[in-house]
C-alpha cells in the first residue's frame, strides 16, 4: 500500500495564531480519510498547505510523491479540490464555472459532468451571483467529481446541501472509492464521516489528536453497557477501566474502556445476564472526549465528556 499524502510536524502561524501546531497526517492511496474537527481547528489551513496555496512555516508535507509548494501545478493536474466556502464569479454561469475549472485542471469527462449536473439537480444556466450557498457548493462538487483526478481534497463539501443531495454525494464518493481514488474528506458532520471513511484523523487546535480506523478508535474508547441481571451485580466499580456504575435491583448501567470490556462482561455473567445492550461509542462521543474540556469551559457540561477528559493525554 502506497501513501497518497504524508505530513509531519507541519506548523503554520498567522500573526500570533498558531493555525497548525505540528500536524501529522498520513493517508494511504485508495483510502477515504475523514478529517474531523470543529471550525477553526485548522482543517482548511492544512488542506491549503497541501494545495500549495499557503506556505508552511516548518514541517514536511508530501502529496502524491511531490512537494505541495514547488510542484503545485503538476500535482494539481492529478487532484481536485472543493473549497469549504465556494465563491463563484458573479457574471459567469454555474455551467461555465464548472467547465472552466475542469479545463484549467486539464479536461473533463463531458458525460460524467452532465450526469452529475442532473443527479445534483443543478441549473447550470444561472449566473454565479444568483446561486444559494448550497448551489455554489454543488458547482464545485460537480467540477471536482467530473474530473479524472486520482486524489480528491474535499473541505466540508456538503455544508449547505440538503439531506437528499447529501445521499447523492455519498453515492459518488463510494463510486470514487470503488474506482481506487483517494479522498480526504474534511467534515464536522459525524454521520457522514462514519458512513464514508475508512480511517479518521481528529484535529484539534492545529494538531491531530487521534488517528486510525473507526474500529481502532472504538477500541480505545468506552462502550456503554446496560444490563439486567438475575442478582444485583456487584464488584463492577472496583474493576479496572469501569466507570460511572449506576444501578438498582437487577439493573446496571456503566461505561467501560475498550480494553477492559472482557473483564467487565465476565464479572456480569456471574450474576446471570437476562438482557444486555451495549453500544459502541459514536463519533460524537469520540469528539466529545477530545473536545470535552472546551465544552466544559463553555459551560456545556456532558457526563461522558467530563469523565473522558484527560484520559488519553
Amino acid at each position: 500500500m502506497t501513501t497518497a499524502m504524508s505530513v509531519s510536524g507541519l506548523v503554520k502561524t498567522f500573526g500570533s495564531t498558531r493555525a497548525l501546531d505540528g500536524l501529522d497526517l498520513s493517508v494511504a492511496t485508495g483510502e477515504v480519510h475523514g478529517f474531523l474537527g470543529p471550525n477553526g481547528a485548522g482543517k482548511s489551513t492544512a488542506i491549503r498547505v497541501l494545495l500549495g496555496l499557503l506556505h508552511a512555516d516548518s514541517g514536511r508535507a508530501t502529496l502524491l510523491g511531490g512537494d505541495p509548494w514547488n510542484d503545485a501545478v503538476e500535482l494539481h493536474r492529478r487532484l481536485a479540490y472543493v473549497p469549504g466556502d465556494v465563491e463563484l464569479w458573479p457574471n459567469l454561469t454555474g455551467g461555465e464555472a464548472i467547465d472552466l475549472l475542469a479545463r484549467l485542471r486539464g479536461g473533463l469527462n463531458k458525460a460524467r459532468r452532465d450526469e452529475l449536473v442532473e443527479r445534483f439537480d443543478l441549473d447550470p444556466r444561472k449566473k454565479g451571483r444568483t446561486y444559494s450557498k448550497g448551489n455554489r457548493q454543488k458547482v464545485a462538487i460537480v467540477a471536482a467529481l467530473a474530473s479524472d483526478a486520482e486524489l480528491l481534497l474535499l473541505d466540508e463539501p456538503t455544508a449547505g446541501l440538503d439531506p437528499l443531495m447529501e445521499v447523492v454525494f455519498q453515492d459518488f464518493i463510494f463510486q470514487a472509492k470503488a474506482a481506487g481514488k483517494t479522498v480526504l474528506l474534511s467534515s464536522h458532520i459525524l454521520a457522514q464521516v462514519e458512513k464514508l471513511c475508512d480511517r479518521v484523523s481528529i484535529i484539534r487546535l492545529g494538531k491531530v489528536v487521534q488517528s486510525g480506523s473507526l474500529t481502532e478508535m472504538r477500541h480505545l474508547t468506552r462502550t456503554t453497557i446496560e444490563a439486567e441481571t438475575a442478582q444485583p451485580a456487584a464488584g463492577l466499580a472496583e474493576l479496572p477501566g469501569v466507570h460511572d456504575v449506576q444501578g438498582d435491583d437487577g439493573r446496571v448501567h456503566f461505561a467501560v474502556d475498550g480494553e477492559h470490556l472482557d473483564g467487565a462482561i465476565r464479572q456480569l455473567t456471574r450474576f446471570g445476564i437476562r438482557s444486555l445492550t451495549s453500544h459502541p461509542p459514536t463519533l460524537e462521543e469520540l469528539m466529545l472526549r477530545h473536545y470535552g474540556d472546551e465544552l466544559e469551559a463553555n459551560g456545556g457540561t456532558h457526563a461522558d465528556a467530563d469523565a473522558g477528559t484527560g484520559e488519553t493525554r
Partner: protein
Amino acid sequence: MTTTTATRAPAPTGPAGAGSALAGTGTLVRFMLRRDRIKLPAWLLGITFFVVYYGAALPQLYRTEGDLRAISTFMTGPVGALIAGPGYGVDDPTVERLLVGIYGMYIILPAALMSILLVCRHTRVEEQAGRAELVRASVVGRHAQLTATLIVAAVANMVLALLIGAAMAGNGFDAGDGLLFGASVGAAGLAFAGVTAVTVQVTEYSRAAAGLAGVALGAAYVIRAAGDMLDEGGSALSWLSPIAWSQQTRAYVDGRWWPLALSVAFAAAAAAVGYVLSTRRDVGLGLFAARRGAPGAASWLRSSLTFAFRLQRAGLIGWGAALAAAGAIYGGITEPIVDAVEDLPADVIAVLGGDAANMLDGYLSVMALFDALLVGVFVILGVQLLRSEETKGRAEPVLATATSRWAWFGSHLTVLALGAVGLLVAVGGALGAATAISVGDAGYVGDSVAAHLVYTPALLVLLGVAALLFGVLPRAIGATWGVLGFGLIIGFFGPIMDLPQWVHNLSPLEHIARLPLEQLTWAPMLILTVIAAGLLAIGLYGFRRRDLETK
C-alpha cells in the same frame, strides 16, 4: 401607548394611503444615520477639509497679482473648460474666484459621489444583501426605505452646504457667496442622489446601480466640459448637465441662486421617477429579470489567459465605449474651439501655443494626457479586481487547478496591458477621427492615435506599481491611486506650481513627449518600459512566494 395604537389602527383603511406607504420612515432615518455615524461625517468633513485646505494653500501659492494672472491665463480657454468649468472670474482673478472656478469642480465631484454611494448603500445594497426583506417585513411602508434614504441624502447635502459656507467664511472670504458655493456643491449632490434613486430600481445588483449612476456623472462631466469649451462662460450644451447648474451660480463673481432651482427640480423629478419605477417591481428584484446564461463555457474559454480576458471583458467594453464616446464628443467640438480661441486676446494665444494650428496640437496633447489618466484608472481598477478575486475566495479554486501563480497573475497583467493599449487606440482614434472631420484634416487621426499611444510606457509603469504591491504588499494596493493622482496634479497643475524639477520627474507621465506639440523622444519611453518590466517581474516573483489570502 394604547391611545396611539388606537388612533393609528384605522389608518390603512382611511384615505391616508400615502401615509401607510411611508410608515416607519422616521425610524429608518434614525437607523440610517446611526449606521452611517462614521461614514457620513467622514465624507462631509473630508470634502470640507479640501475647501479649508485650498482656502489656506492658494494664497500661499499665488502670492502676487502676477501669480494669479499666470494661472488664470492658463485656465482660460479649452484646458480650463475641460478640467475646471465655465471660467467665471478668471479674467479678474482673486483667490476665492480661483477656488470656486477651478478647484470647485473637484469639490462637486466628491459630493456627487458621496450621494451616489449613500443612496445605493441604503436601498439596493440592502435589498441585495436580503436585509431589506427583514425591514420590509415589519411595520414599514412601501416607500419608506427610499424616502428615508432621500431624506438622509438631502440632510447630508444641506449639512455639506453649511459646512462649506462656514469654511469659506472661516477662510476670510465673503460669507454670503461662500454659502452660495456650498449650496451649489450640495445641489449637485442632491441631483445625483435623485439620479441614483432611479438607477437602483433598474437592476438587481448594487454595483450595477452605482455604476449606472457613475456613468450618468461621467456623462454630466463630459457634456459640461464640451459645452464650456464651446463658449466662454458655457454654452447651451453646458446647461444640459447638472454639474453646470452648480457652476453657473457664479459665486464670488456675480452670485445668483436661481440655477440651483434647476438642480432641486431635477432631483425631485428624478426621485419621482424612482418612486414610480419602484412600484413596478418586487423587493429584491430589478425592473428586468436576470437573464439566464450559457449552460457551459464557450470553447475558447480554456486557458488562464482567455479566462482573465473573460473576467476583464465587461470593464474593457464599458471603458472602451465610454472613452470612444467622450473622444468623439471632444473631437467634434474642435472647430468651434479653434474659432473661440482666435477671439482670445493675443497674449493668451501666445501662452496657449502661438497660433490656431499650434493651439489644436496643444489641445490634442492635453486630451491625450487626460485620456491616459483615465486609462490609468482602468488599469488600477483591473488590478484591484484581481485583488478582490483573491480576497473573495475566487482565486483559490483556480489556483488549485493546474494553473500556476505566474500564469494566473501574468494572464491578468497581460490582459490589462493589452487592454490599456487598446483603450488608448480607441479613444485616440475616436478623438482623432472626430477632430479630422471637424476641421477637415485627415492627418489628425494619426496624430491623435500617436499622441495617445506614447503614454503606453507610463501606463505600464503604473501597472507595474500595482503589480508590485499586489505581489509584495497586497493590502497597500490602493497606494497606486496616489501615483495616478500625483500624475494628474503634476500634469495639469504642475506648470503653474512652483515645484523643483525632480518632483515633476517622479510622475511617469511627465517623461512622455506631449505629441503632437513636442517632438517624439524614444529614450524616456524605453527607460520607462524597462522600469515597468522590473516592477512587474518583482510583483510576479513576490506573488509566487507569498501565501494566498483566503477567506
